[in-house]
């Protein structure tokens, strides 16, 4: 990969909690506009790594640059240049759709005028005109997740981090969600995504698989299947994650 286009650079990332090594010397780069799948068994150390990449936690050691900003002393700049969404935390339930958009856009320092025009555009694009003044708790989960993603990239970040974004949603919505991810990547937004749905691993440009705090494999889905001599990503995952000896995170 051309290092000029790398938007995430991770060199020798180590994170320890006491004598427990949650991230054991991670090395990878993610290119601009890439859809990067970050997979691993429960307790493999994914969440710990994502927190560091988002500027929420310090690594113990290593050299990590996010959108060219340093995770040790440019954390506020990192936060301005990324978007984040997870299944567990996305939108405020007791605010309306429009209020949620305004709230997030405001936090990211967008101008009032810009917020106004872009909100209208988003509401139209997602077909939410009739429900735009409804509270989030009143709208179905599928819409909520699509909206949460759109809000996470509303300020046009360089990278969006998605932590199990499609958990629990119905199969049709899950696929519509991936259409949104593809669209974002086409616009040049880098997508860093975790999932437990192994069919979704196939949709990524490249996939890394963590086992016991280390990256055991990193390649395109096609190459991984060839290397491990299996038919699909589920089998790749099972082959690798079976090797895990760590029981606790």
């Amino acid at each position, binding site marked *: 990969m051309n290092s000029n286009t790398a938007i995430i650079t991770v060199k020798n990332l180590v994170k320890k909690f006491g004598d427990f090594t949650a991230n054991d010397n991670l090395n990878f780069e993610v290119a601009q506009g890439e859809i990067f799948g970050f997979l691993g068994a429960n307790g493999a150390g994914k969440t710990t790594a994502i927190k560091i990449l988002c500027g929420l936690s310090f690594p113990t050691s290593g050299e990590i640059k996010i959108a060219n900003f340093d995770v040790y002393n440019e954390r506020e700049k990192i936060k301005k240049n990324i978007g984040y969404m997870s299944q567990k935390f996305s939108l405020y339930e007791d605010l309306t759709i429009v209020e949620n958009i305004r709230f997030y856009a405001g936090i990211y320092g967008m101008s009032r005028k810009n917020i106004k025009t872009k909100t209208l555009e988003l509401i139209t694009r997602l077909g939410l005109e009739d429900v735009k003044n409804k509270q989030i708790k009143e709208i179905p989960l599928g819409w909520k997740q699509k909206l949460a993603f759109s809000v996470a990239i509303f300020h046009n970040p360089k990278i969006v981090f998605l932590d199990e974004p499609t958990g629990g949603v119905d199969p049709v919505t899950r696929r519509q969600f991936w259409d949104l991810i*593809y669209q974002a990547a086409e616009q040049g937004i880098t997508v860093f995504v975790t999932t437990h749905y192994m069919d979704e691993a196939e949709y990524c440009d490249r996939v890394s698989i963590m086992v016991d705090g280390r990256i055991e494999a990193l390649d395109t889905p096609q190459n991984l299947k060839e290397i491990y001599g299996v038919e699909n990503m589920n089998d790749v995952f099972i082959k690798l994650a079976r090797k895990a000896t760590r029981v606790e995170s």
Partner: protein
Amino acid sequence: MKRIIVENISKSYKNAQALKNISFEVNDSELFGLIGPDGAGKTSLFRILTTLLLATDGSAEVFGYDVVKDYKKIRNIVGYMPGKFSLYQDLSVEENLNFFATVFGTTIEENYDLVKDIYSHIEPFKHRLAGKLSGGMKQKLALSCALIHRPKVLFLDEPTTGVDAVSRKEFWEMLRGLKQKGITILVSTPYMDEASLCDRVALIQSGKILSIDTPENITNQYSHKLFAIKSNNLYKLSKDLKEFKSTRSVYLFGQYLHYTSNDNNLNTQEIEQFLFQKGHHEIEIKTIKASIEDCFMDLM
């Protein structure tokens, strides 16, 4: 022998109808799956059957007992693993299991044979606080606690949600083992691929049952000619196929797209020609048998 009978159950909350006239039956020692996304009504149904919630309409029986009149009897013979981890976080692994055994007037020793296969995975950590366990271990402890009084019927509400593919596989192997021991199991999941591990399933969406049958019969009833298609660019493939004549559906399915047409005579050559003109290469097209997920989307 019917172990669970659900007859015309409806449940309404202030603003929403969670269950709309649901009926089904579960046989003795059957592993029955409720397959559906969040918001389908699965948890409401579990809470009604475990006597924690009253239905708005309809009736239900568990092991011959009525869920309203005989609720005390039902509570003694069922094990329930709720979707949310609900053990005591500040008690140790062993204390939790002991607590549940004592509440039901039994001991760990008495029923150890039943939980052994599951509990042995976490027994090395029996002095650890439940709150300090990883997701997979919490799941095993919760299942052990739901089993320690040797229930006749087991209710498992999304036991594998958020759990990785390896642990999910192990968990289903444990359920097969419990079924062999004669326990009737009702389990819910949002993962469509887990349907094939059940004896019978009900596909459920927005409070309504879309279909009830063995996984095999459900997939056999799929009535369209289904193509699996791939090329060098999946996203472009999806966009192009949506523009193709008489397209009925295009869905991403891992490395393939699943495609159906309104034209029953459409053949692979025609599709290949179209895609070739659109500039695709490494094109692969085959007709395949539908999966549960294909059926679910078709019925939605």
